[in-house]
C-alpha cells in the first residue's frame, strides 16, 4: 500500500470522548465538593464521601494525563490551524480544520475570560461547519463568518456555560461573545507569531461588544453580526 493511499483513522471522536469524560469528572467532583459538607457528615458517611471524592479526583487526574498524553503522542498535537477563514473555507479538509481551530481558540478564549472549565465540543464545531448553507463565490467572508457563528451556537459547541459565574462576561452573554471572538480572530490578517496576541485582542473586543453581540444573537440578526465583523476585523 502506498503512503498516499493510507488514511489514518479519524481521532476526533476519541478526543471528544476523553474530553467529555474529563469534563464530567471535574464538574462532578466540583459539584459534590460545593454541595456536600463532608466534614459535617456523621461517620461512616463522611469516610465514604471522602473516599469517593478522592477516587473521583484520582480518576479526573488520570483522564487528564491520558488526554494530554494521547493527544500529544498517539493522536498528534492539537496545534490550531492558523489560516485565515477565507483560505480555510472550501479546502479539502475544511470541516476538520475549522473544528480544530475553533476548539483550540475557543478553549483559549474561555481561559482568558475566566471560564476555563466550560466544555468545548470539537465534534459540534465540525457538525456546525457541515450545516453551513451552500455558498456562492460572491458570498463575502463576513457573511460566511456570521452564518458560521449561528451554526456554532445552534450546534451547542460550548457546554456548561450556565454553571460558570467567574467569567469576565456574564453567563448569558458568554457563549455568543466567546464564539464571536474566535470568528473575529479567524478572519483577521495575522502572522504565526501574532496568533496569540490577535486572539487576545479579538477576545477583548468581544468583551467590549458583548451587549451588542447578545442583542444581535437574541434577535437572530445575522446581518448585524456580519456588519460587526466587517467593521472590526481590520482592527484586531
Amino acid at each position: 500500500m502506498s503512503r498516499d493511499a493510507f488514511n489514518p483513522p479519524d481521532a476526533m471522536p476519541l478526543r471528544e470522548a476523553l474530553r467529555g469524560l474529563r469534563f464530567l469528572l471535574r464538574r462532578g467532583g466540583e459539584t459534590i465538593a460545593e454541595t456536600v459538607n463532608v466534614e459535617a457528615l456523621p461517620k461512616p458517611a463522611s469516610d465514604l464521601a471522602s473516599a469517593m471524592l478522592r477516587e473521583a479526583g484520582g480518576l479526573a487526574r488520570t483522564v487528564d494525563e491520558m488526554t494530554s498524553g494521547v493527544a500529544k503522542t498517539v493522536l498528534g498535537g492539537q496545534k490550531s490551524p492558523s489560516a485565515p477563514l477565507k483560505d480555510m473555507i472550501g479546502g479539502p479538509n475544511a470541516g476538520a480544520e475549522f473544528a480544530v481551530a475553533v476548539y483550540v481558540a475557543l478553549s483559549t478564549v474561555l481561559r482568558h475570560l475566566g471560564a476555563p472549565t466550560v466544555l468545548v465540543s470539537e465534534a459540534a464545531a465540525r457538525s456546525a461547519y457541515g450545516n453551513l448553507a451552500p455558498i456562492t463565490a460572491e458570498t463575502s467572508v463576513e457573511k460566511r463568518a456570521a452564518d458560521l457563528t449561528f451554526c456554532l451556537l445552534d450546534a451547542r459547541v460550548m457546554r456548561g456555560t450556565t454553571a460558570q459565574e467567574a467569567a469576565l462576561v456574564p453567563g448569558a452573554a458568554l457563549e455568543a461573545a466567546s464564539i464571536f471572538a474566535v470568528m473575529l480572530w479567524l478572519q483577521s490578517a495575522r502572522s504565526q507569531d501574532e496568533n496569540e496576541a490577535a486572539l487576545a485582542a479579538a477576545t477583548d473586543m468581544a468583551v467590549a461588544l458583548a451587549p451588542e453581540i447578545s442583542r444581535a444573537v437574541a434577535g437572530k440578526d445575522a446581518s448585524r453580526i456580519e456588519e460587526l465583523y466587517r467593521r472590526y476585523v481590520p482592527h484586531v
Partner: protein
Amino acid sequence: MQAGSRNFTEDMCPMSEIRPNPASLPPTNEPLRIAVRRLRWFKVAFQGFVDATGRDLGCTLEIDDVKLAAAFMRWLTSIEIQKPADKSQRKDFFEFAAALMLRELTADMPVKARGPATLADPGSAAAFWPEGYCCTMFCLSVHTAAMEQEFHAHTTLDPAIDDLRHWWSFRENTLQDASFSSGFLQMLLGHQPNWMMPDVFRARIQSDLTVQ
C-alpha cells in the same frame, strides 16, 4: 517651530525629567496610522509605555485590560464618525485623533497607580497625576511618531506642558467632562481649542480659522 514651543527631542519636562518617547513604541511592518488602529499593537504599545513610565516615576502602574479595550473601541468609533471626507483636512485630523484618544482614555481611566511616584519631582505633573500624565504622554508619543512618518512633521509642544496649573485644571475638569481632555491635548500641541466643543473636529476647524 512656534515661538516658545519645544521639540520632543529636547529636554522639555525639567520638573520630572520624564518626556514623551515616540521611539519606545513597538516596531511594526505597517504604517503607524494602520498599526495604532489594531488592538493587538495598541495593547503592546500601551503596556510597554506604561511599564516604562512606571519605572521612570518609581511607582507601579497597573492596566485594566477591559477598560483599555473599551477605550480603544470608543476611540475607533469616534474617529470613524468624525473623519472628514475632505482630504485636505487629513493632517489636522491626525492631530485631532490623538486628542480623541486622550478623551477616551481619561473617560474611564485604564491605568491605576499603586502608590506615589517616588522618583518624580514632587512639584511635577507626573507626581501630581501619574495616570493622566502617562496617558497624555502616550498620546503625544503616538502622535509624534505618526506625524513624523506620514508628513515628516516635527511635533512641537506648548510651554503649558510644564505648568502644573494646567495639569490641575486638566484633572479637575476631565473628571467632570472627559471632552476637556481633547482640548488639553490640542493646547499642548500649540492650538487654541474650542473649549465649548473641544472634542468636535468641525468646531475645532472653525475655531482655528477664527483665530487666524
